[in-house]
């Protein structure tokens, strides 16, 4: 079999996150997603002559929060710069961004490393900038239509260090980012709506080598699955090039998820010289130590801290804690029922088991859990009190998940309560014995299997509402064994 030398893939990420402020970064237009074309616009966000930007306070606050949550240093004195380039989705032909003094630097996020253990992904910087508009191809005229609704929606760009070595690490990092930013409420991070987009810088090098290879950039990846495939595809492409005496050219490539390969993007005809310079229309921002401390105190408990607490205080497994804290919704489901007195481990088992199972089965995200969080606790409560058996509980939960019904009512209506009155159970079993004399004889002549049969018959007769132990005990007693 043809044997390849081991290659190492090295990646860094540039993640663009749309902040969930009410208004755009430099004007008071709404940031609401969608809307008829060019209806969320004003002279400022469409770059009319003579207009000026006026900075939205919330953007600076959100960016500061994000920076602190991602363990960054906040730049006390930061300012905006202009990034100049021509493209139809950029009405001023420059993007107001931060190059020289970004608002956050030197942070990091801890993830589960490839092959176990924890690993910190370094964050080089976070800067504030404005989003661009949307281009829509018009087959009728074979022209491009421009909609400026998204123009000026606030973004933070989170630039990581080249610390990724596998697609799993990239995806875990993105999931962690998503969770953190959702926790602190600065973004909804909806990839399908483009409020979280990742550019991947990828290069390969012989395993063990220190020097970086030539990298390519893949832009605007907006689904975890596509990211996984893009990384696999692009690494393979680069390795193949190098193994066949070729060389990687530094370029921007577009991942075509349908064709499952990447294509070099037509360089927009221009020499890529962004001619950055300080934005003269915006004065600098100073963030005081006090403000930073206030903001720090205002942050909720973050996934990492929760994860540790779930393990140390609630005795959850590392894996369960990691999975649950990776989603703001699952944490809410977990903590609400925990507060209602539900035992932590049992709760975690249900979430990791039934909840995850039905979510993936129905292709839903934790954010859109379709039932009242309280229902899960109520259900577990009934199991704990032996009011229903585990198998019944699973059936009931399916109904709860599908119809969002109240589990207690559902159990009553379908009278699924465990029969606890042994007298009643006895009567039923006596009938079973009477009706199965043959098996009784076999059992008495020493055939253990016959007992299993009788238990099964009894359970069926009891419609699963008694627990097997009790039934077995009564049977043995009645059969005088």
């Amino acid at each position, binding site marked *: 079999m043809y044997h390849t030398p081991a290659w190492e893939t090295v990646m860094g990420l540039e993640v663009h996150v749309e902040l969930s402020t009410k208004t755009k970064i430099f004007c*008071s237009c*709404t940031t609401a997603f969608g809307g008829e074309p060019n209806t969320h616009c004003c002279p400022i966000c469409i770059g009319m002559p003579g207009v000026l930007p006026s900075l939205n*306070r919330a953007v600076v606050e959100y960016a500061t929060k994000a920076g602190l949550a991602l363990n960054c240093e906040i730049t006390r004195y930061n300012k905006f710069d202009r990034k100049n380039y021509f493209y139809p989705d950029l009405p001023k032909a420059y993007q107001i961004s931060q190059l020289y003094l970004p608002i956050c630097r030197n942070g990091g996020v801890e993830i589960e490393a490839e092959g176990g253990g924890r690993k910190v992904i370094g964050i080089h910087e976070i800067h504030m900038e404005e989003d661009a508009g949307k*281009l829509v191809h018009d087959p009728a005229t074979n*022209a*491009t239509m421009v*909609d400026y609704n998204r123009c000026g929606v606030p973004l933070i760009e989170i630039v990581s260090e080249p610390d990724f070595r596998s697609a799993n690490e990239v995806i875990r990092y993105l999931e962690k980012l998503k969770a953190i930013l959702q926790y602190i409420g600065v973004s909804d991070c909806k990839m399908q709506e483009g409020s979280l987009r990742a550019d991947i810088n990828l290069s390969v090098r012989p395993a063990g080598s220190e020097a970086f290879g030539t990298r390519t950039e893949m832009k605007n990846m907006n689904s975890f699955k596509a990211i996984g495939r893009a990384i696999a595809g692009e690494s393979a492409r680069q390795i193949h090039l190098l193994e066949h005496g070729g060389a990687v050219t530094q370029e921007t490539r577009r991942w075509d998820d349908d064709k499952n390969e990447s294509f070099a993007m037509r360089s927009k005809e221009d*020499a890529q010289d962004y001619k950055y310079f300080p934005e003269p229309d915006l*004065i600098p921002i100073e963030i005081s130590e006090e403000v930073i401390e206030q903001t720090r105190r205002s942050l909720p408990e973050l996934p990492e801290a929760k994860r540790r607490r779930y393990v140390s205080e609630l005795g959850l497994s590392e894996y369960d804690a990691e999975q649950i804290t990776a989603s703001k919704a699952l944490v809410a489901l977990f903590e609400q029922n925990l507060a209602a007195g539900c035992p932590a481990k049992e709760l975690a088992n249900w979430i990791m088991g039934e909840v995850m199972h039905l979510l993936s089965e129905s292709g839903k995200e934790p954010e859109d859990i379709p039932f009242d969080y309280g229902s899960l606790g109520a259900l577990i409560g009934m199991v704990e009190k032996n009011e229903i058996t585990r198998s019944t509980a699973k059936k009931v939960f399916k109904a709860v998940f599908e119809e969002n019904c109240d589990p207690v009512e559902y159990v009553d209506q379908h009278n699924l309560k465990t029969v606890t009155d042994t007298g009643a159970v006895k009567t039923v079993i006596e009938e079973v014995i009477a009706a199965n004399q043959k098996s009784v004889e076999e059992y008495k002549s020493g055939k253990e299997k016959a007992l299993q049969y009788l238990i099964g018959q009894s359970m069926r007769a009891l419609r699963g509402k008694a627990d097997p132990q009790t039934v077995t005990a009564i049977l043995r007693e009645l059969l005088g064994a």
Partner: protein
Amino acid sequence: MMITDELVTYLEALGRIRLPEESRAKAQRDLQEILQYIDTLSELDTEGIEPLSHALPLTNVMREDEVQPSIPPEEVLANAPVRKDNYFLVPRSFE
């Protein structure tokens, strides 16, 4: 600093402009002359001087995050040389 013909071409590309052929040579000479003059700035000792972007030492002027009504598309597109419905229209710009 020499203003070569290549540099002129590069600057045209950066600025998305094209000089009329007949005035190109003169434009190159003028730019050369201007740049030579501007280069006298290199004599000035600016060792350790902080660059000054804003003459006045202002900081932290910000707006509250309150939505104001946008303008109707009719106004957004009022000056558009070419439009389709409520979109601006440009030549095909997709690969």
